[in-house]
């Protein structure tokens, strides 16, 4: 009796889980980046491959437990012993792994192995306990150098710019929101003011840690306008849960207006 119940319970769990995944009860938001479809495709492939293995494993387990309870069954091993199992594991799982790796490398490569477009719009991103700040290079197209000893949140000098002596820094535009024009290649450089943080924009299908001491480039092109959240996913202290910024993807003219307005507020 216990065996039959076990089989039914496992079957139910498998069905409910499979349903929740296939019906996308909780799922990824729509992707808004050029490389997004590749990542989504990889996730779907993995759902298929892993899902089939999950269902098969649980169903066979349930079936055997259902069938072979009690003392009536004739004891015998599966034909061929362990060899077919080993062969199956190597062949089937091995093939799946090779396929996933091969296709997946293209998805990964789309994000990291392709060089950024030389005409990318550059934005410098600083993460610190517990906010993001963004910096546009301004009309001169150059970023001023950073001086951590000059950082002063009270004076809103979040980046530690030396606007008195550094010509490049004078026209840098610092904002608390990341606005970008749609369909234009963007190159972000991520650095941290204090501890580790992360840049997670679900719709962009991008997640990249900020590592103190490093300047990490991330590039992408957004394909839809809208307002999206960027949240921190690397434990950074008590404000970690609340650390976020908004990504605004705007039409080119809206973006120009926004940038001009931000520049006037510096």
């Amino acid at each position: 009796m216990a065996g039959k119940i076990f089989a039914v319970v496992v079957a139910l769990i498998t069905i409910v889980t499979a349903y929740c995944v296939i019906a996308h009860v909780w799922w990824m938001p729509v992707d808004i980046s050029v490389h997004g479809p590749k990542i989504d495709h990889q996730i779907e492939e993995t759902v298929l491959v892993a899902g089939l293995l999950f269902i098969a494993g649980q169903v066979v387990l349930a079936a055997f437990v259902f069938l072979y309870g009690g003392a009536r069954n004739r004891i015998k091993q599966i034909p061929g012993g362990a060899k077919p199992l080993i062969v199956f594991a190597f062949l089937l799982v091995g093939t799946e792994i090779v396929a996933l790796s091969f296709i997946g490398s293209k998805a990964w490569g789309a994000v990291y192995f392709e060089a950024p477009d030389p005409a990318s719009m550059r934005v410098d991103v600083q993460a610190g306990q517990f906010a993001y700040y963004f910096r546009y290079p301004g009309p001169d197209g150059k970023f001023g150098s950073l001086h951590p000893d000059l950082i002063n949140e009270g004076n809103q000098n979040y980046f530690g710019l030396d606007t008195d002596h550094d010509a490049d820094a004078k026209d840098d535009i610092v904002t608390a929101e990341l606005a970008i024009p749609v369909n234009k290649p963007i190159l972000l450089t991520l650095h941290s003011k204090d501890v580790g943080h992360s840049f997670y924009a679900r719709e962009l299908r991008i997640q990249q840690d900020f590592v103190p001491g490093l300047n990490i480039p991330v590039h992408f092109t957004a394909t839809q306008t809208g307002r999206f959240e960027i949240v921190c996913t690397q434990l950074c202290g008590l404000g970690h849960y609340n650390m976020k910024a908004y990504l605004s993807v705007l039409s080119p003219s809206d973006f120009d207006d926004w940038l001009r307005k931000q520049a006037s507020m510096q």
Partner: protein
Amino acid sequence: MFAATAEKNIFLGVKIMPATAAQAAVHHAPPQGFIRKYIFSVDHKVIGIQYLTMSLVAVFVGMALSWAMRIHLAWPDAHIPLLGWLSPSGAPGGLMTPEYYLSLMTMHGTIMAFFVLTAAPLAGFGNFILPIQVGAADMAFPRLNMSSFWVTLVGFILACATFFIPDGPPLSGWTAYAPLSAVGSVAGPGQGWGQNLWGLSIVCFCIASLLGALNFIVTTLDLRTKGMTLPRLPLSTWGWFIDAWVSLLAFAVLLPTCLLLVLDRLAGTSFFIPSGLVINDQLQPHSGGSPLLFQHLFWFFGHPEVYIIILPAFGIVSHIMPTFIRKPLVGGWKVITFAEVAVGTLSFVVWGHHMFVSGMSPFMAMVFSVPTLFITIPSVIAVLVWVFSLYHANIRFDTPLLFSLGFVSLFISGGIGGFFLAQPSTDSYLHATSFVVGHFHFTMGLSAIFATLAGFYYWFPKMFGRMMNEKLGKVHFWLSFVLVYCVFMTMHLTGFAGAVRRYSALVDDFMVPLIPANKFMTIAALLLGATQFIFLFNAIWSRFKGPKAPNNPWDATTLEWDTTSPPPFDNFGGRQITVYHGPMEYDGEASVMQTSPAESVAGT
């Protein structure tokens, strides 16, 4: 020296240094007095029970921390009076602050991963059972064994002590990434003495684990009785033996990692802290260090650690199943054991999969992804062995077997999640979401715990001489099995929505719709916690009032069942133990004990 030992008395079967009989009399005479028998005992059985007792306390502490966390996630305005008493600054009036949430989370992970999951299946059961299963009178180094336990206990006490210091426990997670963990109290509450005590606790655990691993390895190789060739070792002993090697090499790296972290914190070094950090408006004096160096060192230990946790589970389940399915496992001892060796070996070359989005070279990400995916193969082989051994078996659904079957189902579920996390492209979306939390809870928190519980119900009669209550055991199993799926499969699913982990509250626009799911998980988790008290009651009540257990209540074949329940102080009462068969001589109702000269029934 080699004369027949028939006329010798209590020193039979016991190590004797030929040089002086006086030392022999001291070394392994039955212990006298309460202190020597139950407190500072060198007897591996007592030490095993001491580890299990510590882990039992630790698991309830760890669970209580998780209840507090889950209550806060579902009902952020809830007042928990006990917390308010424990830490007036962390939870004023019982209302949990964000930093206290992170502290509870840090200690939940630390206590569970080390003092429950690494200690109980390996040091707890391994210590009690392994020497008996190989036919020895004790571990190779009994006094070293005793030291290992007491050092572990000191580590546990230090971890618990963090709750009682003014600033509370650290909040950097069990993974303690630098620089957050390295710069000291400027980074937040608990990052002063809390982190120091934490580091000291881990250092104690490392040292104890290394010495314990040494004991397991030497005992298994050197102290096997006549006829106990390596192929005849029980699969649980193989699991502990292989695990001891992984443990030896992995903890050997965690120890320096913690020492370097302590140097950064207390001695002004900059192994992990780069220059130019401004924390709390203060420019930090360090320069030149690398947070990624910490991650490499930590995860070089951290990944094998999860296999250190699961390998004894593999061994325990592989050992228990034949008893209750009344046939040997498919492939005998070789297939499962080789799968364990493969898993243990590969576990050392995959650590970078924790660092795909860390800023490590994306090319290295691809490099680490390949063995991470390939480790699936021996894991799948193991699962196939357990599942297909059920084919044409005679399954007896006693509680140990139910928990073993539960283990198999949970391990399949947990392993499947690994496919998503092993590939950098898919991991870039799922990293640091509740998908990861679901995945590691399934594999470590659920599978390993179910295997440990299977072992507990299986070996309880041997350890305490009494049977546990079967009905309560079954209730414990069914409730736990369904509820763990409710909590942790839901976590996988919310992970697909991008639900971020280690958040003390769900306030982001996309997190708010996940609150109902979180409430569901909280209620299931609290029910799951309540269920464990059934087990606790069963264990404690049966210890004193359970029906007396025979030598071999399960009709099993290995050496521990060929002695009394509980065994005498030297395990076999001075008998010469000779092994004639492998450990899986089962054929339906029939079975042949390893120590029986009767004919084999299963051809092993």
